[in-house]
């Protein structure tokens, strides 16, 4: 789930970093920040309304000191604008922007049994060419599918699983017109 505000901040940071030629450093910083923010308990000290903003910002200092100046500026701006809550979505939003820039997309392929690396890649290539993107697929095993695969990229899904087909058949059979009943 993406917060549109976080996406706007991430886009700004991304384009500035790209212009200044420090994209790689900033990307690493953002990943580091995202990891820190997603730590259990991090929310308690970062987003606690009972603690003043300055205090909360100081708590990030140990991590910030190791980061690029641009990232530090960014975090400062976020706190000044009282948008610190978007830090929890920043990693995801920035990652999305990076993928967009490369014309890449990430997806998930669920299958009833683990797929081989070659199979995943063939699938990724053929679906990726349809979407016009370089697709990277992550394989997840889901025995409930019975057989076949279900690929999810963003909000698109291609269902080629046996369980999906059986469900479709079940629905069709329930919807089938039954003349003998209608006449009765």
């Amino acid at each position, binding site marked *: *789930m*993406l917060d549109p505000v976080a996406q706007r901040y991430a886009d700004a940071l991304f384009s500035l970093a790209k212009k200044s030629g420090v994209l790689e450093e900033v990307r690493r910083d953002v990943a580091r920040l995202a990891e820190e923010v997603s730590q259990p308990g991090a929310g308690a000290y970062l987003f606690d309304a009972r603690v003043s903003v300055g205090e909360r910002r100081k708590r990030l200092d140990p991590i910030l000191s190791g980061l690029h100046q641009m990232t530090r500026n960014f975090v400062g701006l976020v706190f000044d604008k009282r948008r610190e809550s978007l830090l929890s979505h920043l990693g995801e939003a920035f990652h999305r922007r990076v993928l967009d820039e490369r014309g890449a997309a990430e997806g998930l392929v669920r299958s009833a049994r683990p797929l081989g690396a070659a199979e995943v890649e063939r699938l990724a290539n053929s679906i990726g060419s349809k979407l016009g993107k370089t697709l990277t697929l992550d394989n997840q095993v889901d025995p409930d599918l019975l057989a076949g695969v279900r690929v999810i990229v963003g*909000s698109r*899904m291609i269902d080629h699983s046996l369980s999906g087909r059986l469900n479709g058949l079940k629905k069709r*059979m329930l919807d089938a*017109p*039954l003349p*003998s009943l*209608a006449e*009765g």
Partner: protein
Amino acid sequence: MDLRPAEVTSILEKEIANYQGESSMQSVGTVLSVGDGVARVWGLDDCMMNELLEFPAGVRGIALNLEEDNVGCVLLGDASQVKEGDQVRTTGRIISVPTGPSLLGRVVNALGDPIDGRGPLSVGDDDYLPIEQPAPSVVERQPVDTPLQTGIKAIDAMIPIGRGQRELIIGDRQTGKTALLVDSIISQKTTGGGDPEHPKQVICIYVAMGQKQSTVVDVVQKLEHHGAMPYTIVVSASANDEASMQYLAAYGGCSMGERFRDEGRDVLIVYDDLYKQALAYRQVMLLLRRPPGREAFPGDVFNLHSRLLERAARLADNAPQINPRFKKGGGSLTALPVVETQENDVSAYIPTNVISITDGQIFLESSLFNAGIRPGVNAGISVSRVGGAAQIPGMKKSAGGLRLELAQYRELQAFAQFGSDLDKATQRTLARGERLTEILKQGQYVPMPVEEQIMIIHAGTSGGLDDVPVGKVQAFEKAFLQHMQDSHPEVGAAILETGKVSDEAKATMEKAIAAVKPQFV
């Protein structure tokens, strides 16, 4: 109900053989929040407006709000089955309802699923039509010029309704609005003998929105009892259905009617009632967080009703050449929307909206109803803006006098209450008015053929009733019409055929009045 397992098996066999797994790319989303029959869904990138969505456990929904980061949709089924995090799929279908002759005689819900326990409908994929369709354009229409007889004297004489017209029926609760609708539907039996195959038979659709289920059952039973069900479809979204179903029922019913209209048939659709529909719409829109306006109705509540009622039309004879969507020209869809008022206040928001959309209104007043004038039509403020052209000439002539005399009567009525000395002319106007009012009273479920209406109104306006005591006018009416039928059936037949009342017919009627009167004076 006869269930034949062998036949069912063979149908299922066919379904299995022809089953093609969907391998196309689908748009999916995740439920963010659900409550009060409304869900917010994240994802669904290619979702269309009004698209049917599929939730797990067979619950369906409609996408109504397409926002930057989520889709707001209303649920059309049991909302308690939907959980946060559930996967939602688009179906690629705009919400549609089954249409066609197999719906006749059935009771269906807002989505066209039968709810009368008489088994599924036999409809194919082609029979499904979207519930929202554009109204016929200017060139595809022709003016309203054919009467739609309701069989109710007060309406056919004074507030005539033409085929393709939209006439509002407005009044407080318990003023006989539904009774009037049911009578109008029953009266359509005369157009084609109640045989839905007959090309002249007017097809009727009764859309009940937010009504008590007991009322719907009552209506269906009355229609069945009077043989009106074979040419009628009842669309019911009663008070316990989801609010979304209650406001969609009108559009679904309209599409079912349009199917017949586009095939060249005449259709009568009644919406009972649009005030409750607006309430249901308000509920859904507020839950979807659309900004509220006057009386907390959303800003498009006027459009809600105007786009529905615009679909009532009389199609031009050459409509199929202009738009292939119409299979045959000349059909019509007549709409009788109902609006319930509070304390006779016609200047409230929804009533004024619908009054301005429709081509006239029939105002039912509780004071008249309670005074025994039933139907309690207030002839003073009821109008029909196009119906005048849609009266047969004979009726137009006799009814013209009726309107005038009743207007004079109402004006003088206030004086009459002083009981003081009134001059002769005033007394005569009052006496005439009382008798005409008596003539316009009519029982329920007894629609009257137009030729009989003309005869009794002629008797009243020609002064033939002036010396019959007011209390005996109804008895006289009965005897007079019986006498006309027994002794002079040719008069009624001639009126029906020519549409006019000839001088000979008038003379015959005078004679009949004179013959019947002595019993009552």
